């Protein structure tokens, strides 16, 4: 039983946050509806962008929760709840996936049976890429994610009142089970929804590529929320630059990790120079897409790298909030760069592309507000909490 009592007074989030969430959701939903009306296919491709970004936030946050339990990390315990709230967006994920599940035929070439019959490569892949198995798989992903979300947060919540250390032990077991599940589900999620848009193309590192962006995106959103909440005193007292520094370091590390993986993928394909692999990159280096490719390097690697390079800037709340939003946008651009060239080989960018990012931002905000209304923003019963608050680098 935990004996320390951390002084924490739960406060409701200001109404402006709810207003922002509702506004963004409404505006996003309106743009999405208009997009679907005018250009149904384009709406669907944007839908995949939205789905993959939201999955990054939801599952990446859940991964972070599991990682904290497994590694026995204390510095992040005071704001683990933020991650738990973010992973509650797994429910929104199901809603965002529904329009796609109803229109698989319109976006995925491998669902066209007459094309598969004539194409020996697609025929060879058809035991994996067929509508039945695809549906079963993705339902299984959703069920697994919701199951682990429910378990990990349930015991964390129970600990708030009982202060029983055994829940930490139980959650460590669930986290252990979640790790391989996470590795396989995110890999196949990325292969199913993004890589199979171009069913002839393959890259064995693709799952890792998506994972690197996933964790980065979840961490960036969480960093923005954590710093904002802490500055306004919604969390416990005593969280400061040491915690900011750890968040900044982790963001910096995963920025580098993403760049490392992205460059590895590019360089191996460039070096081998095999036509059935290179055409994927060539399509992203022509007809206006080259600007998006360059912007991606700039947005997702160079800017975060140089902003986060020095030690003082990793401790600076303002810079962390900026870079949190920036990386979230950069991840959205990354998904746009992965997905949209399959819709059109020449650059498409317009108001239609605004819909889903707005909707996703709104859904994340609303989910967070909804969870924060009922639960503590700090896991007050966690035995590691006091050590986490006292954490010094």
């Amino acid at each position, binding site marked *: 039983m935990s004996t320390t009592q951390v002084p924490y007074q739960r406060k409701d989030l200001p109404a402006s946050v709810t207003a922002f969430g509702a506004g963004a959701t409404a505006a996003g939903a309106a743009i999405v509806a208009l997009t679907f009306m005018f250009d149904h296919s384009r709406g669907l491709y944007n839908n995949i962008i939205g789905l993959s970004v939201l999955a990054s936030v939801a599952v990446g946050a859940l991964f972070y929760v599991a990682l904290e339990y497994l590694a026995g990390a204390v510095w992040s315990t005071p704001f683990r709840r933020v991650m738990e709230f973010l992973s509650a967006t797994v429910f929104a994920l199901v809603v965002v996936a529904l329009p796609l599940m109803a229109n698989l035929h319109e976006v995925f070439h491998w669902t066209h049976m007459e094309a598969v019959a004539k194409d020996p490569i697609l025929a060879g892949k058809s035991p994996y890429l067929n509508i039945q198995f695809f549906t079963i798989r993705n339902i299984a992903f959703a069920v697994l994610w919701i199951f682990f979300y429910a378990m990990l947060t349930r015991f964390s919540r129970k600990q708030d009142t009982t202060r029983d250390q055994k829940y930490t032990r139980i959650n460590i077991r669930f986290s252990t089970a979640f790790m391989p599940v996470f590795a396989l589900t995110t890999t196949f999620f990325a292969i199913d929804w993004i890589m199979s848009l171009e069913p002839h193309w393959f890259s064995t590192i693709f799952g890792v590529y998506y994972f690197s962006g996933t964790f980065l995106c979840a961490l960036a959103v969480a960093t923005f929320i954590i710093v904002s909440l802490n500055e306004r005193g919604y969390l416990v007292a005593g969280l400061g630059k040491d915690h900011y520094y750890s968040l900044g370091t982790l963001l910096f590390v995963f920025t580098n990790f993403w760049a490392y993986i992205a460059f590895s993928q*590019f*360089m191996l394909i460039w070096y081998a*120079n095999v036509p059935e692999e290179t055409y994927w990159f060539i399509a992203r280096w022509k007809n206006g897409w080259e600007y998006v490719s360059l912007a991606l390097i700039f947005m997702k690697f160079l800017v975060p790298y140089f902003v986060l390079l020095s030690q003082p800037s990793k401790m600076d709340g303002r810079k962390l909030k900026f870079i949190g939003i920036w990386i979230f946008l950069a991840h959205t651009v990354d998904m746009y760069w992965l997905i949209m060239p399959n819709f059109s080989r020449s650059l498409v960018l317009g108001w239609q592309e605004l819909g889903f990012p707005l909707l996703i931002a709104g859904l994340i905000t609303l989910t967070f507000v909804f969870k924060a209304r009922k639960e503590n923003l700090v896991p007050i019963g966690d035995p590691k909490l006091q050590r986490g608050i006292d954490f*010094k680098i």
Partner: protein
Amino acid sequence: MNKNLLYSVTALFDTPDGIIHAAEAVRNAGYKRYDVHTPYPVHGMDDAMELKDSKLGFITLGAGLLGGAGVFAFISWVFLAAYPNVIGGKPYFSWPAFVPVTFEITVLSAVLLTIGSLIVFFFKFPNNSHPLHDTPYMKNVSSDKFGISIQANDPKFDEAAVTALLSSLHPLTVAPVFYDEEELRHTWTTFDPKFLALLVGVALFVSGSTYLHLNKLLYLPPFDWMSNQNKFKPQTPTAQYDDTRMMRSAPDGTVARGFIPYPFKGMPDSAGKYLVNPLQPTSEALALGKTKFLTYCSPCHGNFARGDSRLRGQFPNPPTLHSDKVRNWPDGNIFHVITEGQNIMPSYASQVSREERWAIVHYVRALQRAFNAKESDTQ
């Protein structure tokens, strides 16, 4: 002891909290030249001593940028100027291939120069006679105690006041540390005669023993068993044969195993007259001929033997093989041209085996038939 030889007054503490408390007290008393020695990094010490952020990060940054830029420039120079070589059909300046090495060298130079400058600038290496060396104080702080040392060259230093301050902090011990008189007086000469003599002695010994080993010992029995073997060496004269040569040539008319001599050298017409294709035009023979034709012949003759070279004028195009002349040639003539070459076409005898050459002849015949089909072929 002489007062002028006082280096510092030191105090030992038992706990990290004790040393942080002591550092704060010393700082608040206004001392500047003092240092803390602990067996491991104690958290919060930077704040307690009010240390400014270390400048080491800038050295790391500079070293990394310098190393990265330097190695990138070096690789570019190698591939553009020093040793330009086409690798995998890529342009000379293939910068993506340079990135991994640039990355590794950036990290390496950043790390090495950081550690090097840490040792040289911050630890003031080489310093063999620091007064704290070999003191009980240093022995304690490098095992399980925490020490603070206020130096005598501090502007505010006064031995009695410092001792009183440190004693008031509940230390384990308070002790002054003195310079070693002998070490202070000792002068070092870099070119000490004894040192130079040792250097010369080592050089003589090493080069002498190397010389003896490589040039004398290895040729003395029994160490010469590698260089002096009981066998005849080619290219050496001998009294055993009349022509005094150790290397013998094969008797006239010897044929190597698996080798059939070509009897029509320089006689294309005889080849056409007497040679008969030993292969049946089966689908296997045609498939073999196709593979070999596409590999060895098609770069110049074109995929369909029409003389449409893929070399885009870098090598003169050969004439088409669908001409009346070639179509009316007997098989042996074509075989002869592949074996011997013709005009600027070199011999392909070493690349394409005898059987494969005959398979190519079949394939060329099939191509000729396809381009000049008879009436009966279409039925």
